[in-house]
């Protein structure tokens, strides 16, 4: 047995949600182990369970080293770290106001002698040890590809995004770990930076480090991992070498939606033609309601959208599909005025969306239903809808509309006086859509309406979307559940790393193998 880390029947739920549901895994020593799964599958919770940030409700986590086996479950994070399990965080967690070197030095905390009292009177031999540590920190920076002369004394917050990610790895390495857990190390990176991350992971592994890699970028995960486990809704649905996992029907369904297999196996020979018919020119609307050209959006150093162009004509359902982190939500947020693009054109009728204030955009008829629904959990269903109509001047008409919505969506009518937080995820989604409708949209932007919903609830939500569309509302839909979205969409665009990769009519894209590649890697 050379399993370094063994998880047995691990369980953890939050409220009613089973974030990690009876997961067992074994990570061999010296391997690169990949953990993948759609958004909300429980990957980060699993990492938090292993590293002590979240306590499991049942199950065990065993770390097997040459010196013996240790149970990690229910130990505090600093103890787990002391046992040789280092991690990075999905959202960067550097010591932003400290320099790069100071970040690494803090990471050495457990691997240095405690000489606090001697340090109060600094004499030469003690300073020599200080210098030795300093030198070691510089070596670690160099190891992850950060030039210590250039970056060592820079404040962590001033480094570029990719360099910050690398610094976090250097800080984790300072712990001299047996197991390094990387939680989405390549998130938000461009392809060149991703290549450097891949090389770094492989180098660290060659030096004898066991790596647990969590990432959405399938090319990266499939490329470097020797073994992959797939989570969905907190359960492990597949486990094995990359080639087996990427062909596993359960995995394809989890990533692409329930229709995936039929369509994915439908392809023999016809793909060439499909790609040809889906060239952008043939399907672009002539006089679009919404027109976007070369849109570029950045979060500080991260460029999330790099020149996206598309259009939506009146009466259409248009879908933007693509893997997590492709930049889909960023595009929507830039259209609704929540984010400001730094280049490009976005016009909605006569309105310039790149400069107009968000409230002006809403009043002109472009309304966004945000990802994660953002309903007000403590207010009742009815109060949530009233707030949706708050900006309306014609309050009587708005009240009639609220009553009409209650009849139209009985799920809401039956629960009108219930706190919205008690609704199920799908019901909350419908409430969020209904709230959006009260702003009288001409174009409704829906961001991941099926996110985290059980399959039958996904059906209900998509029925609602079609109903609204039949009532004359144009819809721009962002979805990870690609095949469901393509079923109802007139046209769709596939987004990858901030660019439009493909476009075409819904049916043509459903048969296109490139779509599956964009999700599961080539």
């Amino acid at each position, binding site marked *: 047995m050379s399993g370094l880390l063994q998880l047995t029947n691990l369980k953890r739920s939050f409220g009613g949600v089973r974030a990690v549901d009876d997961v067992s895994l074994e990570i061999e020593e010296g391997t690169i182990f990949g953990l993948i799964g759609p958004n909300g599958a429980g990957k980060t919770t699993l990492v938090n369970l292993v*590293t002590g940030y979240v306590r499991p409700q049942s199950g065990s986590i065993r770390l097997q080293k040459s010196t013996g086996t240790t149970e990690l479950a229910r130990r505090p994070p600093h103890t787990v770290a002391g046992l040789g399990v280092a991690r990075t965080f999905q959202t960067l967690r550097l010591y932003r106001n*400290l320099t790069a070197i100071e970040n690494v030095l803090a990471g050495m*905390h457990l691997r240095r002698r405690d000489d*606090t009292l001697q340090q*109060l009177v600094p004499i030469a031999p003690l300073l020599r040890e200080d210098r030795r540590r300093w030198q070691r920190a510089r070596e670690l920076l160099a190891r992850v590809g950060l030039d210590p002369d250039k970056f060592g004394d820079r404040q962590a917050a001033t480094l570029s995004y990719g360099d910050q990610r690398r610094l976090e790895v250097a800080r984790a390495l300072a712990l001299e770990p047996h197991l390094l857990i990387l939680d989405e190390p390549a998130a938000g990176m461009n392809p060149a930076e991703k290549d450097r991350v891949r090389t770094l992971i492989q180098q660290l592994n060659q030096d004898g480090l066991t790596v647990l890699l969590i990432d959405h970028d399938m090319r990266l995960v499939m490329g470097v991992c020797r073994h992959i486990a797939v989570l969905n809704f907190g359960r492990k649905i597949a486990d094995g070498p990359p080639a087996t996992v990427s062909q596993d029907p359960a995995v394809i369904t989890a990533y692409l939606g329930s229709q995936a297999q039929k369509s994915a196996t439908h392809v023999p020979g016809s793909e060439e033609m499909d790609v040809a018919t889906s060239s952008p020119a043939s399907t672009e609307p002539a006089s679009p309601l919404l027109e976007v050209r070369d849109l570029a959006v950045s979060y500080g150093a991260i460029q999330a959208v790099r020149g996206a162009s598309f259009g939506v004509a009146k009466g259409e359902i248009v879908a933007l599909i693509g893997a997590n982190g492709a930049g889909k939500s960023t595009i929507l947020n830039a259209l609704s005025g929540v984010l400001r693009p730094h280049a490009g054109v976005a016009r909605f009728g006569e309105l310039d969306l790149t400069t107009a204030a968000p409230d002006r955009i809403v009043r002109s008829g472009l309304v966004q239903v945000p990802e994660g629904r953002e309903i007000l959990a403590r207010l009742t269903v009815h109060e949530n809808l009233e707030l949706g109509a708050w900006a309306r001047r014609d309050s009587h008409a708005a009240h009639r509309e609220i009553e009409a919505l209650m009849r139209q969506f009985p799920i809401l009518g039956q629960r009108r006086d219930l706190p919205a937080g008690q609704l199920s995820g799908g019901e909350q989604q419908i409430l969020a859509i209904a709230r959006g409708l009260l702003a009288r949209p001409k174009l409704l932007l829906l961001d991941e309406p099926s996110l985290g919903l059980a399959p039958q609830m996904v059906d209900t939500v998509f029925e609602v979307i079609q109903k609204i569309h039949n009532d004359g509302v144009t819809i721009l839909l962002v979805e990870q559940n690609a095949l469901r979205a393509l079923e109802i969409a007139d046209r769709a665009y596939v987004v990858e790393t901030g660019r439009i990769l493909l476009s075409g009519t819904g049916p043509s894209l459903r048969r296109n193998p490139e779509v599956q590649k964009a999700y599961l890697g080539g």
Partner: protein
Amino acid sequence: MDFFIQLFTDPIGFYNQHELLIAQIGINAILAIAIFVTFYSGQLTLANAGFMAIGAYTTVLMSLYLPTPLPLNMLVGALLAGVVGFLVGLPVLRLRGIFLAIATIGFVEALRLGVILNVPITGEGQGLKNPTADPLGGILPILISVPVLTYLVWRLTHTRLGQAWAAIREDELAASSNGINVPLYKMIAFIISAVVAGYAGALETHINFFVDPTEYGISRTIQILTFAVVGGTTNVIGPIVGALFLTALPEIIRQASAYRDVVNGVILILVIIFRPQGIVGRGGLAIIAPRWWTRWRSRERPAAAH
């Protein structure tokens, strides 16, 4: 202006004339060091006035009832403040940010209203006369303590302990992933802060004839907080500069001394708006430049990147 002219032309005369002011600046500087230690570890605690009271009352009560020498009394006062700090810290340090601040203010008020004003031995609301008071001789220990404590705390911020504090301040979750025992190091900072504040309280009784319970309330706590905010907390010099500046100011501008709290409030607001990192920022003493000014200047220069 006379204030500065005398400071530079006649330092001995200045010292003799302003002895009490200098002593008060020293006390406030030590309190500033106390709050710095907790700030440096990322904790907004406002319990210092309470620990001061413990140091002060312990010293005076021991002088009144025990034959022990004064330095020992002061030491016991400071250490007792540390012990109480440990006991208070056990429940309170689970809290963060504003909740920690409120809980520690609660401690200060509970101590003053619940213990000091109700226990006969503390003189209740009357306060206590200090038999060992020595306004002039008491200055010397203060003048020695300030540089010694400054040096020790400055060194401390460069040790393994200090690095752990800085890591906790920057990001607790990340600190624990680096193996830093966050609750332990927070507690160490809280206790050191309590001991230093208790010591300042003991020193203060030594220059006053009287221990006055009204000295140890919320307004004292807020005053100490102001030193830290105005001076800046990236560096131990910051709060000390803040203490020096805010204690001396009413003397420099005599007309303003009646409006001391108003002036302090205005300074606090101006610093928070225009120099949130405090007078002494990371780069040492810096000219006060508002953020819009630097933005405007960087816009004038052609953007280098992109």
